[in-house]
């Protein structure tokens, strides 16, 4: 596989003819110029454009943020008062001050400069969502409880996705400060903890409300992905000599991720699909685009995911940590696909059973009526 990848990279040498590039540039620009007249900005606009191109990005960011912060804070304080902002801290989804709580979180992110610190914040918000889920789960069953848990779980998922984006940015960043890795390690630890808490809470919640299974599974999956992404960043920094973490410790972390991913796959309950005669076919809409459209949906076996994770272990043994963690991400993606498909099949079965029960009930009613008539 490594050889194939290297060969694919070599294809990068393919380039268009230089004379064609130059020729087309001329044609393109003349066509554009013919289509439009350039719009001249005002003097102030030009001055801003010119100065903006020379002012370092950092200066722009640091000067804009406090101004933005002051205006947002002014709105918040005028709107709800300082007590309102503090009171919102304990609010739950559905409460009056919950939007204030979420807005305050956004403001907190906006004043933080570094991507890794922002990632830490987002994971902190995700942790807050878990607390909300745990609190709401103790409320009586009902539509309100379900809606609140859904809101919190989706909020958690979104925070984790943003954290992953910030981790990507931190990886691209050339900052060699050890503080970067320290922050990313905190992100990993916290994401792991959130994932474990979610798993435990999910079992309790889904026992009484199966419809929340998919939502909570996605939230947990987002936490797991963030944790793996954090390791990916640490591996990258390690390869550039920007961390003090030892090889052994890093290998241990990757191995832990592989083991966890394998356990996830093995925990999936296999679903058996009976192939029915054509007249009785029920087409399940395939959520995965790799399935054949319009055909019978067949549950994928976990063997593919396990095979990928086995390859991850091989790469780990060879010392190729970045390929190993990439394989973990691929294996987790397949596992997630299987879980979604399983959920779809189970939902479809539940709906079919409900429909059949309704039909049987109608039949029984009809039979009873016939008997009564006779």
């Amino acid at each position: 596989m490594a050889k194939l990848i290297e060969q694919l990279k070599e294809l990068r040498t393919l380039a268009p003819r230089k004379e064609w590039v130059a020729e087309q540039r001329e044609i393109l620009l003349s066509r554009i110029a013919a289509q439009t007249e350039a719009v001249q900005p005002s003097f102030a606009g030009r001055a801003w454009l010119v100065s903006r191109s020379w002012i370092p990005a950092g200066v722009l960011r640091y000067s804009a943020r406090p101004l933005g912060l002051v205006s947002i804070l002014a709105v918040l304080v005028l709107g709800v008062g300082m007590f309102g902002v503090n009171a919102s801290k304990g609010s739950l989804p559905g409460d009056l001050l919950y939007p204030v709580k979420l807005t305050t979180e956004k403001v907190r992110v906006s004043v933080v400069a570094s991507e890794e610190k922002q990632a830490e914040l987002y994971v902190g918000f995700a942790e807050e969502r878990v607390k909300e889920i745990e609190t709401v789960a103790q409320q009586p069953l009902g539509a309100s409880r379900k809606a609140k848990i859904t809101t919190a779980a989706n909020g958690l998922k979104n925070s984790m996705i943003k954290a992953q984006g910030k981790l990507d940015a931190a990886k691209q960043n050339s900052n060699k400060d050890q503080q970067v890795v320290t922050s990313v390690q905190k992100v990993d630890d916290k994401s792991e903890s959130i994932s474990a808490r979610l798993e435990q809470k999910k079992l309790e919640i889904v026992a009484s409300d199966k419809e929340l299974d998919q939502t909570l599974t996605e939230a947990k999956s987002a936490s797991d992905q963030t944790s793996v992404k954090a390791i990916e960043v640490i591996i990258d920094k390690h390869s550039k000599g920007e961390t003090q973490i030892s090889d052994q410790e890093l290998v241990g972390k990757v191995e832990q991720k592989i083991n966890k991913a394998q356990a996830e796959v093995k925990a999936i309950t296999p679903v058996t699909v009976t192939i029915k005669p054509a007249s009785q076919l029920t087409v399940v809409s395939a959520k995965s685009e790799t399935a054949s459209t319009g055909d019978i949906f067949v549950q994928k076996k976990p063997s593919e995911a396990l095979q990928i994770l086995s390859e991850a272990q091989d790469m780990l043994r060879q010392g190729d940590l970045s390929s190993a963690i990439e394989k973990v991400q691929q294996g987790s993606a397949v596992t997630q696909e299987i879980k979604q498909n399983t959920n779809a099949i189970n939902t479809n079965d539940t709906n079919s059973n409900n429909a059949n029960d309704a039909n049987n009930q109608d039949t029984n009613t009809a039979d009873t009526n016939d008997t009564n008539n006779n």
Partner: protein
Amino acid sequence: MKKSLLKEKYLLYSVRQRKDAEAYGQLYDAYVDRIFRFIRFKVARTEEAEDLTSEVFLKTWEYLNSHADVKVQNFNALLYRVARNCVIDHYRRRRAEEILTDEEQMARIQDSRDLNRETEVKMEMKNLEGGLNKLKDFYREVLILKYTEELSVREIAEILDKKKGYVRVLIHRALKALKELTGED
């Protein structure tokens, strides 16, 4: 923010606010090679790839200036999306079929020789190119984006308008399929 990213944002701003052709020319310089390469692996001939690449940049200009209210977060992703759509439209116009005519087969072979020359190919690369040609389009596409153009999973997901998880699965299956076709390990 990296220097090149800041410059790109400034150029985009000039294009959209001032309809600055020269600024767009600089964006063209930065992206023409990769867009050509992306399209080249999707069509049979170099000439087709050249025509479509030109079309991509013209259409992107038109899009930027007719959708002033739409924020462009990632110009790279926008270009690739326009490129994909152009290739799809191209085949629809040609009513392309999977089985090529003899003439098209010859053109493909001839162009594959050009491709080999362009990439200073060795025997393994001929094998790779043969495998790529036989791959399903969406497998080939994702491998080119990931390994040849070295885009991240997130960027590829944005271009294909799919979830990251789906892209990861696709990459794995595409590599596996290519491995089977080329017999490489």
